[in-house]
């Protein structure tokens, strides 16, 4: 009886001990910083004015609501995410379908196609900013030789072309992630389904829409949600290509937050970061809901 009680006590503590390291790490690197950010968002917390640091209630949020730059940055974030993730998905899907076919050198192509994903964002930004350069860029050179343009275009110095340029860059970077995830999903689709579709006389397009895409529903959903969150939070590509310019044309919310934090206005930067988090939660909740629903099911 005594032994049994000891075992029960032991097994009661043991799981918590095993969980403790993970919980401590989660608390210290996720929960505490979030609480700290929330707390700072209610303060005048500008490190260039340390003597004025203190609680100011909702002032940062009130200022934010009246800050036209905040709303414009939010709108640009939506454009950045919509086109950035949308194009990544389309091209990633196409690449995955291609890589799922048997052809000579497929292994090499699969490995090479991963290069954009494993290249650091800062390096990608530098590389593409030189490619888009209005004086020496290879893109201008190619377009001139093809007679598509008659004079060089300052892609990153003009508001109309700066945003498409940074979107192209993020699309290039993100295609392999979609391709990799979708490829893994494709390989999990039973061959019987396609055989049955063949017997029913389905065309290639019908097989795509009635077999492939429905079978990949969860993969597509999870991958898209993750990428929406990552792209919305992404700073490295835009900042290193345009610093949010010219004239705020590529300033997304995360870039605005970064610039505010860099100029040491931590209170206002935190308030904007909290707002960005709330916006992203709107996208993340369906993702979480879907994940837990599947687990419960």
């Amino acid at each position: 009886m005594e032994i049994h009680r000891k075992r029960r006590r032991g097994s009661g503590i043991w799981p918590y001990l095993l969980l403790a390291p993970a919980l401590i790490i989660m608390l210290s690197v996720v929960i505490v910083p979030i609480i700290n950010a929330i707390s700072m968002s209610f303060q005048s917390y500008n490190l260039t004015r340390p003597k004025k640091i203190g609680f100011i209630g909702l002032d940062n949020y009130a200022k934010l609501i009246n800050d036209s730059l905040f709303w414009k940055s939010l709108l640009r974030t939506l454009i950045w995410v919509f086109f950035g993730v949308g194009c990544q998905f389309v091209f990633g899907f196409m690449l995955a379908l291609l890589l799922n076919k048997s052809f000579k050198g497929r292994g090499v192509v699969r490995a090479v196609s991963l290069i954009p994903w494993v290249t650091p964002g800062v390096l990608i930004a530098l590389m593409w900013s030189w490619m888009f350069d209005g004086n020496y860029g290879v893109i201008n050179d190619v377009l001139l030789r093809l007679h598509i343009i008659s004079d060089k275009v300052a892609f990153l110095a003009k508001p109309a072309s700066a945003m498409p340029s940074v979107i192209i860059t993020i699309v290039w970077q993100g295609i392999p992630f979609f391709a990799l995830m979708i490829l893994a999903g494709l390989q999990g689709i039973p061959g019987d389904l396609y055989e049955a579709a063949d017997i029913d006389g389905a065309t290639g397009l019908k097989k795509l829409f009635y077999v492939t895409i429905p079978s990949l529903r969860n993969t597509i959903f999870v991958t898209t949600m993750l990428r929406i969150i990552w792209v919305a939070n992404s700073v490295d590509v835009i900042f290193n290509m345009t610093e949010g310019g010219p004239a705020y044309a590529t300033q997304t919310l995360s870039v605005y937050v970064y610039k505010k934090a860099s100029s040491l206005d931590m209170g206002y930067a935190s308030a904007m970061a909290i707002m960005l988090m709330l916006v992203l939660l709107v996208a993340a909740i369906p993702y979480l809901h879907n994940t837990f629903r599947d687990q419960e099911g």
Partner: protein
Amino acid sequence: MCATMVSAALAEETTIKFWFWADNDAYAQTMQEMIADFNATNGKGITVVGEQYPWDGGGYSGNLLTAAIGGGGPDVATFKLTATPSFVGNDLLTPLDEYINNWEDKDQINENLYNTMRTAGGEDAIYVMPWNTQVLYVYYRPSMFEAAGVTVPTTYEEFLDVCAKLTRDTDGDGKTDVYGFGMRGSNGGQEPWGCFLYAGGGDWEHLDSEGGIKGMQDYIDLYTNGYAPETAPNDGFAQVIDNFKSGLTAMTIHHIGSSAQMMELFGDDVAAFVFPAGEGQWTSMGDTETVMFESCANKEAAFEWMAYLATGKGQETWCTVTGNVPVAARVQELEQFQSNPFMKVSIEGSPVAGILPVLDTTTEWISNWPSVIQQALLGQITAEECMKTLQETLWAE
């Protein structure tokens, strides 16, 4: 060197953690060699450990501040004067007056420079030790001047005229091949832009004055008239230097730090002049100093290292390699500095060289400057609106 300040603490081995930034690998290597030399020769058991961090368009100052507040900062660091209020406001820096007053090399540095350092802290104390300066001037290509039939401008109006005349289609295809002026509309562009502000008749206290607006309008006109590359709003340091080096621009503004690579590339076909006077005259004094942190355990040892950099062998070595203007009189008089034509122009420009107002708004103002200027260059706001915004944000309460 500061013998009277050396306490008994120096009898023991002391380590000084030193943060610095370097503009390129050669400068970083030079700094490590200077550190090795100091460690080998100071004879007081002081070991400096140098840690290099990127300048990152000014991000260095923010990183240094964050590290110091978080308790992970260095004992001594290289520094920019404009960052002083944030550090002094957070009680992070050690006042250096006592050390400087007891220092045998005190008079090697001009009293005006000490006064500038004193003003920057917002208190009647020196927190920042002079190290070296860089005075901005105009680089130009004599061969391009000759081809365009112009001479070095002596007034601001002549300068604007020369920008127009240097802009040329050299191969007759109807497209501009050489632009008169390499404009920096992105990060760091506020310093060369200050030359136009003053030449137009404005100043840092009155950015939205009639003269300030005129200077801004001239700046806009240079761009919209096509006398600067179309990429100018997005051009930062690397772009303006590359444009000049490639022959795309005939003039650009930078300091002596670029002279070695310019001379290596162009030989005699590169020269410099001080940005000419208009209604007023100003050029930027790019300053680099050192600071000592309050958290430093052995301040006497830290000051030994700072003194080595300011007036000792470190001063000569660093300024020789980087081409920066020395602050120590003894080093300024050395032949290698007296015979350098770019050093001569730097010294010529020194009387009108200054720094941006050191305010607690300066960091954010510098960060916002490109976006506001870009709006003006791209015609989204007028020169007047631009200067009003810049005035309100710099002098905000």
